[in-house]
């Protein structure tokens, strides 16, 4: 009786392991949270107008933010392909040149990615400020936003 239970226990663990391998194996290939500019360009006309996410770095010196009309323009790059991104609304406080970003929107026929949501992908690096360096208080922009500033 007890031996049977050991086998049931081991069997369940084996099933759990098999599910992990199958799910993970299947998902590993298919889960794509965002496309890179190179992948998006390769798809081209196939994905015009479809809602998707695009991830890469903000190309230095490409950012053009017009606060009067709330229009943001920048070039996103994966080091290989560059694509222009146009977005409405203010970017998150941590948005800056060279920063990783994921944008939600769609790719249009004119080759511009129109985004309605810019998200900043920060790294896993943390360090204290250097002498004379003042950290930005990123949450402040939220408080100001609430206050209508």
């Amino acid at each position, binding site marked *: 009786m007890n031996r049977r239970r050991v086998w049931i226990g081991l069997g*369940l663990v084996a099933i759990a392991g098999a599910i992990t391998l199958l799910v993970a194996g299947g998902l590993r290939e298919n889960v794509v949270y965002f496309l890179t500019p190179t992948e998006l360009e390769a798809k081209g006309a196939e994905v015009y107008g479809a809602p998707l996410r695009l991830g890469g770095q903000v190309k230095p010196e490409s950012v053009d933010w017009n606060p009067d009309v709330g229009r943001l323009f920048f070039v996103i790059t994966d080091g290989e392909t560059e694509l222009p991104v146009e977005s409405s609304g203010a970017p998150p406080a*941590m948005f800056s040149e060279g920063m990783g970003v994921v944008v939600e929107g769609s790719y249009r026929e004119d080759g511009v990615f129109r985004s309605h949501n810019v*998200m900043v992908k920060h790294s896993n*690096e943390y360090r*204290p400020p250097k002498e004379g360096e003042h*950290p930005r208080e990123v949450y402040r922009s939220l408080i100001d936003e609430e206050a209508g500033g």
Partner: protein
Amino acid sequence: MTITDLPQPNPGRARLLGTATLLVVAAGSAAGLFLVPADALQGEVQRLLYVHVPAAWLAMLSFFVVFVMSVLYLIQRDPKWDLLAVSAAEIGIVFTALALVLGSLWGKPTWGVWWTWDPRLTTTAIMLMIYVGYLVVRSFADDPEKRARWSAIIGIIGFVDVPIVYLSVLWWRTLHQPPSSPRSMAGEFVYVLLLNVAAFTLLYVYLMLRRYRLAVAERHVEELRLTRDDGRIT
């Protein structure tokens, strides 16, 4: 097996551990809030790291304990493994929810969104659902033995998602950053994080002792009720 056979933790020792836990948690919070400077890039918000990471660690530790206790239960059919499993599951749910809420609060000022369906966040939400489901299934079963058996099966199969949550940031493209390491973090930050991980781990052991004691008492009441209602339809 009757309830009187179930081992009980020593209440005096549990109290002592509770006091020690309180002191270490207070020290960890003080260190995270005042001892180290805030991150150069993110500012004060980054201090959430010292609670968010330990909470996520406890969630995964809890569900690993559920897994081990479930296997032991199926092999030995000793109710104490079942009661330890449900104790761990409840604690895991609390800390999964805490990690999700703190992550959301951290995400808005840094990422720009409270939530996004990236693989790390999605698999974590699934993990929460699995263990909430575990508790729901338990509440459906009237027979303690059947309840223990069903939930042990969920405790084993459901654990599948836990390593996937951890590996999601390494396997897939995510908005969530990969795990920090001593190489990606300043030394003083690492020490404070480790102190808080230790504090939360102590808290876990303390909560387990308390919750298990409660589970034994609940089981006792249930057994008395079952004996009283024996042969009667309630």
